[in-house]
C-alpha cells in the first residue's frame, strides 16, 4: 500500500511542478549576517538570558566547589530522591544519585542531575546530546533539573550551536528555561509536564 502511495505522491509532485508556469529560478538564499562575540561576554550574556527565561544559575570554580554547590541547590529544593544521568562528571559530583531507573521510579524522583553539552548565550539555552549522555529523562520527568555546564562550552548563537551539534545523536534536546504553558487565558504557568525549576551549575576550570 505504502509503496504505491509513495510513487503516486512523488509522481503527483513532479506532474504539478511541471505544470506550473516556469517560474524564475528560486532566488539564491542570502547568507545570514555573521556576528562573532568576544569570549568574555559569553558567560554574562548567557546568565542574563537564563534569568530572562526564568532559569537559575550558580557559577563555581572546580569540581570540589561544584559538588558543594550542587548539594546546596538540591537541599534548597528539598530534593531527596535524585535521578542522575550516566555522565562521569555527575557521578563525581554526586555519588548518592539514582541511576538506571524504571519509568515508574523516575516519576517518584524530586530532581534530576545531568550535564549539558553546550550553552547558547543569545537565548539562554542548554543543549543535551543523547550520544554523549543518558540525560533525556532525568532532565525532563522530575520537577527540578540541575544541569552542569562547562563555561568553555558556551557559544554565542543558535547558529554556532547547530554547527557544533553531533547529529549522530538520535535525540538532541534544546532547553530554554523551565517547562511552561499559557494555554489558560495566556497566563504564564511554569512547570507543566517538565521541570518547574531549571538550575544551571556553571563550571569554570579550576
Amino acid at each position, binding site marked *: 500500500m505504502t509503496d504505491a502511495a509513495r510513487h503516486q*505522491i512523488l509522481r503527483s*509532485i513532479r506532474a504539478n511542478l511541471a505544470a506550473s508556469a516556469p517560474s524564475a529560478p528560486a532566488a539564491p*538564499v542570502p547568507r545570514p549576517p555573521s556576528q562573532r562575540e568576544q569570549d568574555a561576554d559569553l558567560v554574562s550574556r548567557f546568565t542574563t538570558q537564563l534569568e530572562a527565561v526564568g532559569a537559575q544559575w550558580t557559577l563555581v570554580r572546580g569540581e570540589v566547589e561544584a559538588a558543594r554547590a550542587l548539594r546546596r541547590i538540591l537541599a534548597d529544593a528539598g530534593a531527596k530522591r535524585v535521578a542522575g544521568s550516566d555522565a562521569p562528571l555527575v557521578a563525581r559530583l554526586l555519588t548518592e544519585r539514582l541511576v538506571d531507573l524504571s519509568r515508574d521510579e523516575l516519576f517518584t524522583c524530586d530532581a534530576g542531575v545531568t550535564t549539558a553539552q553546550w550553552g547558547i548565550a543569545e537565548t539562554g539555552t542548554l543543549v543535551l546530546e*543523547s550520544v554523549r549522555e543518558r540525560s*533525556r*529523562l532525568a532532565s525532563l520527568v522530575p520537577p527540578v533539573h540541575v544541569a552542569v555546564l562547562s563555561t568553555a562550552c558556551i557559544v554565542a548563537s*543558535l547558529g554556532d550551536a547547530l554547527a557544533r551539534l553531533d547529529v549522530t545523536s538520535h535525540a538532541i534536546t534544546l532547553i530554554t528555561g523551565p517547562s511552561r*504553558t499559557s494555554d489558560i*487565558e495566556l497566563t504564564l504557568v511554569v512547570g507543566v*509536564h517538565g521541570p518547574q525549576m531549571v538550575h544551571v551549575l556553571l563550571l569554570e576550570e579550576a
Partner: protein
Amino acid sequence: MTFEAGARAALSDAQLRGALRHATTLFAEKRRAAMATAPDWEGARDRARAIKDETLLHLDRYLDQFTASAERAGARMHWARDAGEACAIIGWIAEQRGARTIVKSKSMATEEIHLNAALARRGIEPIETDLGEYIIQLAGETPSHIVAPAIHKTKGQIAALFAEKLGIAPSDDAAALTAAARQALRRRFAEADIGISGVNFAVAETGTILILENEGNARLTTSLPRTHIALMGIEKVIPRFADLEVFLQLLPRSGTGQVLTAYQSLLTGVKRHPDDEGPDELHIVLLDNGRSRMLAAPVTRQTLACIRCGACLNACPVYRQIGGHAYGAVYAGPIGAILTPQLIGIERAAHLPYASSLCGACRDVCPVKIDIPAVLLHLRAEVVAQHAGKRRVFERLAFRAYAAVMARPRLYERVMRLARALHITPPLRAWTKWRDLRPLAPRSFREEWRRGLKKEGTG
C-alpha cells in the same frame, strides 16, 4: 452551520469576544517585542522564504533525500495519499502493537486527518497532552487556534470543566488548574503504549525531525512510549540542518512572542543501543492530502511555505472578532481560508476565500511572506469560475459596465452627473447589507475644483 450563522453567533457571544480580544492583542504585543530582539528580522524572513521556495521547487528530490536519511538512522517511513490512508497506517501500527492508550502532543496534521475519531473507532484511546488540547478534548471541542487551541475559553469555563471532569474543587487560579491537568496526565504518560506527535521541520540532509513546544508533553510523548509515530505534511521538509537556525528565529517569535520556546527536540531515527533512552521504533508518516496539487502554480504553491505560527490569526480583523470555530474548518483564520479550500476542495469551502476583508495584515506579519490576499483572490476567481452560470449574468454585466465607465474619465463624469441629477441609488441590496454606500455629494470634487476651489487653495 454556515459561516454567516457561525460568525453571527460568535459576534453575539460576549465571553468569546472578550477571550479573543485579550488573547490576540497580547499575542500581537508579544510578537512585536520579540521581533525587536532578532538581529535582522526582514533578512530572516527573506532567507526563510527563499529556503522554502527552493525546497518546494524540488520537493520530490528533498523528500527522497529525507526518506533515505531517516531510514538510514532507523526510522520507518510511510506515505499517505489522503487522510483516510494516514489514519489507516497509524491505526494499523497501533493495532499491530496491541496498543490500548496513545499519548499525543499537539499536531494540527492529526486534527486535519481526524485521527482521534479514527483511533477511537478501533477501540484505542487517544489522549491529548498539550494543556490546551487536553482542555478541548475534555470539552469535546476542536482547536480554535493553530498555536493556542483553547484560546476561546475563559478561565471560568475551564475551571467548571475541570471540576466536572476531573473532580477537583473549582478554582480561578491558572496554576492550580494546570497542576490538576499535570497530575491527571502523568499517569497516562506512564502507561501509554504509543506516542504520536507532529513535526515542525524535517531535515533532508540528516533525516532529523524537529518538534517545538513549551510544556514538555512532546518530549514525554516522544521519549517514554516504546513506539513513536510522527505525522508530517510533505511540505515540512527543509534541505539542510543549518537551515534550522532561521526557522527557529522566526517561528517562536511569530507564534508565541518568545525568543525560543522552552524545548526543541531534534530526533534522528531511533536509539543506537538497547541501553539508550527513547523509543525502540520511530514511524514517520508523510501526508499529501491535497498538498502536491498546490505545487501546480506559484500563487497556490506559496501556501506550502507556511510554518503554522498563527501570527496571521492574531493579526486578522475577522479572526479577532469571530474566533476559529466560525470558519467551520480545522485550519482557521487567514491561513485556514487559503489552506482549507485547497485541501478539501473549493466546492466544499467556497465561503472561506470570502472570510476576509483583504486588508493585508496577514501578509504583513507572515514570517515567510506568504501573500495571503493574493491567494484569496485567486481562490475567489476559482469560486466564481465554478459558479459561472446564469445566476451570475447580471453580476458579470454590472462589473463589465463598471469597468467600462471607470476606464473612461469623460464617460465617468457624465454618468455621475446623471446619477446626481436623478438621485439614483444603484440596486445593490446584497452589497449594502454589509457595507455603507455613501450618499453622493451635490457636486463632485472636480466640479468644485473648476468652480474656484483651485483659486482658494493657491490664494
